[in-house]
C-alpha cells in the first residue's frame, strides 16, 4: 500500500554523549523522535527520550509469586494431603524441607515469565524480521529516526537541527 509508506529523516551519530545532548536539544525544539537505534545500551537515553521506567521487574515479581504459590500448593497437596507419609521423623507438613524447591520454582517462573514478557512486548521472535533504518546501527552508529508526517517542522529544518547538534550525516528513508 502506497499510502502506508512513511518518510523518515535519519540523524547518524558517532558518539553516545553527543547523541544524548542532541536528543535533548532536538526534543526541546519540539521535534517528535520516532525511535533511536544503537549498537549498545546508552545510559540515560530513556530519560532523554522521555520513556518511562520498564515495568518488567513488576512482571518478574508477579511471576515469581506465582511460582512460590505453585510450588507450595504442589508439595503440600502431594506430601500432606494426597499421600501423607512420615519421612525422617518429621510431621506431615515438613515446611523447612519445602524451602529449596519453593525457591527454585520461584526463580524459574520469575525468570521465564519476565523473559517471555520481554520477548512478546518487544516483538522479538525467531521468525521476526528486523526493520533496519540503517544497517550500521548494529555496528558503530547511533541512528535517530524522525518521522516527517508526525512533525510540524519540515525536512530542511529538521536536517539543519540535527546537523547543528552534532550528527555526522543526515539521511532520508522511506519505510512502511
Amino acid at each position, binding site marked *: 500500500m502506497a499510502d502506508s509508506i512513511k518518510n523518515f529523516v535519519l540523524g547518524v551519530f558517532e558518539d553516545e554523549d553527543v547523541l544524548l545532548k542532541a536528543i535533548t536539544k532536538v526534543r526541546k525544539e519540539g521535534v517528535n523522535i520516532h525511535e533511536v537505534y544503537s549498537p549498545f545500551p546508552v545510559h540515560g537515553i530513556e530519560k532523554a527520550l522521555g520513556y518511562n521506567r520498564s515495568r*518488567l521487574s513488576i512482571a518478574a515479581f508477579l511471576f515469581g509469586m506465582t511460582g512460590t504459590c505453585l510450588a507450595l500448593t504442589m508439595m503440600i497437596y502431594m506430601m500432606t494431603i494426597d499421600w501423607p507419609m512420615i519421612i525422617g521423623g518429621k510431621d506431615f507438613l515438613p515446611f523447612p524441607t519445602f524451602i529449596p524447591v519453593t525457591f527454585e520454582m520461584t526463580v524459574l517462573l520469575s525468570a521465564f515469565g519476565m523473559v517471555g514478557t520481554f520477548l512478546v512486548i518487544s516483538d522479538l521472535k525467531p521468525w521476526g524480521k528486523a526493520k533496519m533504518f540503517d544497517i550500521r546501527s548494529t555496528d558503530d552508529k547511533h541512528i535517530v529516526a524522525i518521522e516527517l508526517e508526525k512533525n510540524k517542522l519540515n525536512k530542511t529544518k529538521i536536517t539543519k537541527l540535527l546537523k547543528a547538534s552534532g550528527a555526522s550525516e543526515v539521511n532520508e528513508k522511506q519505510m512502511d
Partner: protein
Amino acid sequence: MHVESKIRTPLITGGKTLHDVSNDISRRVEDKPSVSWLIALGISLIMLLVGGYAVYRTLWDGIGMWGLNKTVGWAWDITNFVWWVGIGHAGTLISAILLLFRQRWRMSINRAAEAMTIFAVICAAMFPLLHMGRLWLGFFWALPLPNTYGSLWVNFASPLLWDVFAISTYFSVSLVFWYIGLIPDFATIRDRAVKAGRTISASIYGALSFGWDGAAKTWSRYETVALVLAGLATPLVLSVHTIVSMDFATSVIPGWHTTIFPPYFVAGAIFSGFAMVLTLLIITRKVYNLEDYITIKHLELMNIVIIVTGSIVGIAYITELFIAWYSGVEYEQYAFYNRVTGPYWWAYFSMMACNVVSPQLFWFKKIRTNIAATFIISIVVNIGMWFERFVIIVTSLHRDYIPSSWGMFYPTIYDVGMYLFSFGFFFTAYLLFSKYFPVINMAEVKSILKPTGETKKNK
C-alpha cells in the same frame, strides 16, 4: 587546585573503535574454520565416540559395568557430577554477581564463561541421570508426575530431589540469561552478512537474532531484564551448590554430615569454575588474538578470585579436621583420620597440594600476571578440585561401620570412558560455540569502550 584522579588501566587496549570491536569478534564467526580448529574438533569427537561406547554399555548392561561395590556406592559418577557442576558456577557468577557489583571487567569474559557454564552443567547432569540405570524411567522417579503406584509422589524431603529442581532451574535460567545477551550480537553478525550478501548466514543469524533492531525502548527493557535476571541468578548460583552439598550434608555418614558444607562447596565451585574459565580463555585468547579484549588485567583479576576462594577452601579443610577432633565423636574422628592417613592419603595429599598450596603462588604479582603460570595453576586447581570430591565421597564411604565390609574403589574402563565422554561433549560444544557464536559480548564491550578504553585517554 586541580586534582585529577589516577587513570585506571584500560580494560580494552589497542585503541579500538566501535567498528573494530564488531570486526574483531565477528570475523571469527565469518572466517572459514581453521585447520587447527578442525583437528581439535576431530579429537573432541573421537573422545565423544570412545566415551559414547562406555555410555552405551552402561545403558545396555547396567551400572554394574562401573567399579562400584556394596560399600562404595557412589564414586566417580558423583565425583564427576559435583566437579562439573562446580565448574558450571563461574559463568553465572561472572555475569550475575559481577553485574550487580558493576564490575566492568566481566564484559570481556562473560560470554565464554556462560557458555562454559551451560556445557558443564549438561556434563554434570549426565552422571546422576546415567546412574539411575534405567534412564527412560527417570521422569517418573525425578519429577512429580502421576504414576501407576496410585500417585506415590516423589519425595520432596529428599535433597536428591532438591537437586533435580536446582540443577534444572540453574541450567534453564543460565541458558536464557546467556541467550538474551547473545541476541544483539547475532543482530550485528546478521547485518554484516546482509551487507556482504551472504544470504544463508544472514537468514540463520537473522532467526537467531529474533529480529533485533537495537531500538532504545528495547535496549531499556533489555537492561531491566539483565538486571533482574542477575538479581535472580545471584541467589540461584549460590543455592545450586548449597543444595549439591546437602546431598551429602543431610546424610548421617561421618565425613559428610557437616554444617560447613554449603559455604565450603560454593567457594570450591567458584574456585574451580574460575580455574576452568582461565584454562579455556587463555587458549581462546591466544588462538583468536583477543589480547586486546582479554588483557593481563582480566587474568590477574580472575587470579585474585582464585586466591580468595582457594583460601576459603583451605580454611574449610582445616576447619573440618578441627571440628572432627573437637566433636569427640570417634566415628567422625576416624573418618578424618582415615582420610588423611588411610589408603587414600595420596588423594588427600593431591587435594591439599593442588587446592591450598598452588593458588597461594598468586600472591606474587609476577606469577599472577604470567600467562604460562596462570595456565598451569588453573589446570592444577581443577585436578585438585576433582580430588577434593573424590576424597569427600570415596574416603567417607570405603570404611563402613563394620570392618568386614570395608573395601576399596577401583574404577573400570567404563568409569574412565564416562568421564572421557563428558570431556568429549564439553570440548565439542565449546569448540562449536567459539566458532559460530561471538565469543565476546560485542554490545557490552562497545558500551564500555569510551569510559574505559584507551581511545578516551589519548584524546
